């Protein structure tokens, strides 16, 4: 976790600014505006940069916050402090409504969808009678503490920046937690996260609400700063502007949102006040220059300015190694000392006219290593996906410990103690090895988003990280623990995936080509590890192409060809089976 010192320094500097003698009052106004924009951008950082959900509609949530307090304080005379939670709740509720519809959309539907409802809501704000139509609502009371009224931009300045810094802290806490890891895994697709029990639609909805509540907070502050609201600042243009504030600053970084807000607000101000002096003529020259500068900035630093600035700082090396003496409680497991763990019966999967898996039956016993082999396209990975619930079988049945699981989603399968790795590595490249592996222990932690934000999750979190560190040591990657997963070689990334799967505390481990990309020595170490796991009571089902590896390791081998099981038996019998030789080498062999 990053040190809190820079944030403290930043807070002190911001607190001191109004006391600097000769500080032009106009600068304070600018800083107020920066703070308001930074709040919204921070939500977008989480939503867009981290979660991968692009939203153009944030301005509408600012509008909900602002209009809620405007209506309640003017028409019903409520105190602004009373309307603060109400503004946040209204923004949050609308986020739930719109989020349920939009977050399940993939890729480009999402930004366009948000653009559309953002526009729709803007027109609604400007047409509704009780919101004052285009004129909006004025004479909103100022914030006050006791008899002190925050009438000037200089007095509400503190309210705004306390909100910004607190929100930044809470957001950073959230990201550095069990829930945060689930959120950070969203951008890389949902299959891997779901395989470890993350409920991805719920995680997406959560960031959506978080971003909306921050926007609502900004709106509430805006209403009491301006003491009047009208629809203009909540339209599509504003929604677009918030998004590019986040992108310019660096969409993956909380402080990138603040930096982006500062750049965009100041740039617009400078252009508006100085450009007419240089280029006299009819209006809107600043829009032209602003647009051009935006494109130029993106071409020079497509990742935004914050990471670009950070690259000048000395690199932070390593992190603290978690205290591995802390233990997570073991998963309760069914007493299946001997017997069938997994039973696949006449499983069939059709994609249109293609039969990828054709009535395949086999089982995996307790304390057994079973290998699933076959030429490319034999249906091995599809079988894995059927077992783990990523795909559902066209017909046939799959049961775990005698319980049918054919229709269960991946999150339910992993709860039964079946964890897996992927043929194409699915790690989050910009998270450390430790954090990636900790996703595997997702279901064994309990802290929710609120306790993570307030840092009430530390005991739970320490146990999760300890478990992750233990599994990393077990697979022999202790030295790489704090490196980014994307910086490891492909072979090592496969091993990281195994550590992640072990964090589930599984009874059955499904490995999809674990030895691919490993060197000879690494393969031997992997084989030794798998034997050790088996002797410790775990079963392993693996898909592998390296015959030497499989023949030495597996207790039993199942051979698939064109989706059909053609043989099953011990390595010795498989080696001499004529059907298998035919499938691998052709007829004449």
């Amino acid at each position, binding site marked *: 976790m990053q040190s809190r010192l820079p944030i403290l320094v930043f807070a002190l500097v911001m607190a001191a600014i109004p006391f600097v003698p000769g500080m032009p009052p106009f600068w304070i106004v600018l800083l107020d505006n920066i703070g308001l924009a930074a709040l919204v951008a921070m939500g977008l950082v989480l939503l*867009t940069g981290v979660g991968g959900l692009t939203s153009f509609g944030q301005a509408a949530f600012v509008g909900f916050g602002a209009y809620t307090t405007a209506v309640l304080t003017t028409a019903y005379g409520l105190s602004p402090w009373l309307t603060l939670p109400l503004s946040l709740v209204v923004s949050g509720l609308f986020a739930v409504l719109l989020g349920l519809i939009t977050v399940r959309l993939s890729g480009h539907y999402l930004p366009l969808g948000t653009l559309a409802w953002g526009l*729709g809501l803007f027109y609604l704000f400007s047409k509704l009678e009780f919101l004052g139509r285009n004129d909006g609502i004025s004479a909103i009371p100022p914030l006050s503490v006791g008899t002190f009224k925050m009438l000037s931009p200089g007095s509400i300045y503190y309210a705004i920046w306390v909100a910004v810094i607190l929100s930044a802290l809470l957001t950073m806490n959230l990201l550095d937690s069990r829930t945060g890891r689930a959120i950070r895994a969203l951008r890389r697709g949902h299959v891997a996260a779901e395989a470890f029990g993350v409920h991805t639609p719920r995680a997406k909805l959560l960031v959506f609400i978080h971003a909306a509540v921050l926007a609502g907070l900004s709106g509430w502050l805006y209403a009491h700063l301006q003491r009047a609201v009208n629809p203009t600042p909540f339209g599509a243009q504003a929604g677009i502007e918030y*998004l590019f504030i986040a992108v310019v600053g660096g*969409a993956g970084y909380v402080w990138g949102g603040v930096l982006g807000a500062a750049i965009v607000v100041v740039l617009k101000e400078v252009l508006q006040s100085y450009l007419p002096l240089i280029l006299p003529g*009819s*209006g*809107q020259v600043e*829009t032209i220059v602003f*647009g051009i500068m935006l*494109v130029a900035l993106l071409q020079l630093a497509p990742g935004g300015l914050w990471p670009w600035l950070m690259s000048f700082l000395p690199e932070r090396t390593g992190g603290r190694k978690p205290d591995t003496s802390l233990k997570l409680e073991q998963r309760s497991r069914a007493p299946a000392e001997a017997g069938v763990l997994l039973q696949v019966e006449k499983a069939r999967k059709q994609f249109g006219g293609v039969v990828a898996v054709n009535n395949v039956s086999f089982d995996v016993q307790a304390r057994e290593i079973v290998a699933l082999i076959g030429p490319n396209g034999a249906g091995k990975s599809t079988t894995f996906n059927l077992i783990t619930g990523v795909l559902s079988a066209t017909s046939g049945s799959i049961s775990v410990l005698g319980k049918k699981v054919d229709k269960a989603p991946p999150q339910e399968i992993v709860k039964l103690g079946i964890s897996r790795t992927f043929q194409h590595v699915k790690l989050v490249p910009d998270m450390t090895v430790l954090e990636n592996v900790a996703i595997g222990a997702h279901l064994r932690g309990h802290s929710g988003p609120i306790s993570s934000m307030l840092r009430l999750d530390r005991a739970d979190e320490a146990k999760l990280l300890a478990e992750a560190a233990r599994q990393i040591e077990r697979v022999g990657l202790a030295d790489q623990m704090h490196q980014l997963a994307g910086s490891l070689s492909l072979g090592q990334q496969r091993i990281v995936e195994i550590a992640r799967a072990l964090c589930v505390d599984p009874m059955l481990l499904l490995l999809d080509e674990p030895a691919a990309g490993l060197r000879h020595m690494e393969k031997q170490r992997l084989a030794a590890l798998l034997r050790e796991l088996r002797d410790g009571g775990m079963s392993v089902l693996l898909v592998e192409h390296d015959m030497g590896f499989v023949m030495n390791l597996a207790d039993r081998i199942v051979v698939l060809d064109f989706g059909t099981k053609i043989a099953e038996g011990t390595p010795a019998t498989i080696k001499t089976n004529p059907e298998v030789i035919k499938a691998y080498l052709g007829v004449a062999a």
Partner: protein
Amino acid sequence: MNTTIMLFLVQDGITNGAIYALLGLALVLVFAVTRVILIPQGEFVTYGALTYASLAAGQMPGTAKLALALGIGAFAFDLFVARKALHGRLVVRSFVTNIMLPAIVLALTIYFAAQKPPVAISIALSLVIVAMIGVYLYRIAFQPLAHTSVLVLLIASVGVHLALQGLGLLFFGAEGQRGPAVLSGAFTAGALRFTGQSITVYAITIAFIVGLWLFFGLTLYGKALRATAVNRLGARLAGIRTTLSGQIAFLLASVIGALSGIMIVPITTLYYDSGFLIGLKGFVAAIIGGLVSYPLTAVAALVVGIVEAFSSFYASNYKEVIVFMLLIPVLLLRSLAAPAVEEEKD
């Protein structure tokens, strides 16, 4: 409800819907090939319309100068990228397409603008000018970003939109303009009156849909574009120049945009910033079409046009709300029917 009013509204809706269909098609095309969500599509509409209207009124449109300026920029980008391996043919080719061409068009525009040219020449010049702007914009703003994420491209697209809209105000002023009808005359069938203009709109829309369908189905360039859309890297490995695909996509989009503008401006007064909203309605159609299906987009655009016509008659205050909220049930359906496909993003 009065049948005549209903028929009239449907007709009005179909005319607008046809325009939205064209814009929706262009958006789908550009997105599929370049991953750019083309917010400046609306500016292509206004530029086309207002250039045409200016020329018809005997005024010099600033867009011709913009085309030359962008061409010079594109030339500079070409030289800069090729600075390590400059050779004569490349420089000459880039000079001809990026500087000579817009210079000639500028000269022609100055010549014709002084003498109120016939409709056909105004249309031709407007189309060429906007087409050049589109292609050079791709070269300058989007080609250097081709490797980045959809989000970055989208923000760049917003930047281009802002700059073009500001320039639009500079070129055409804040007042709206109307242009002369492309095809005058009218006839009535029953209660309905068909103007030459609305017939033109239908004819051109249908021609474009058929034309695009033939282009993508039968020609080599069309197939190359489709290949780029499916897999950029794969297309490059097969020898397709993806930058060329991008340029073709922008060329088509700007021509479609300008043409739509020229068709609307005799019917409605257009302002420098009208394009944004018109383009967005094309978006609505494109989203309903899922950003992939051309026929679905065309049908959706007609629905958007008709809904807009009816809501502006019955609840004109809430016209925009209704049109944009139309998306919510569509999105809802899509999200319920969405298959759980894995996407590798970034």
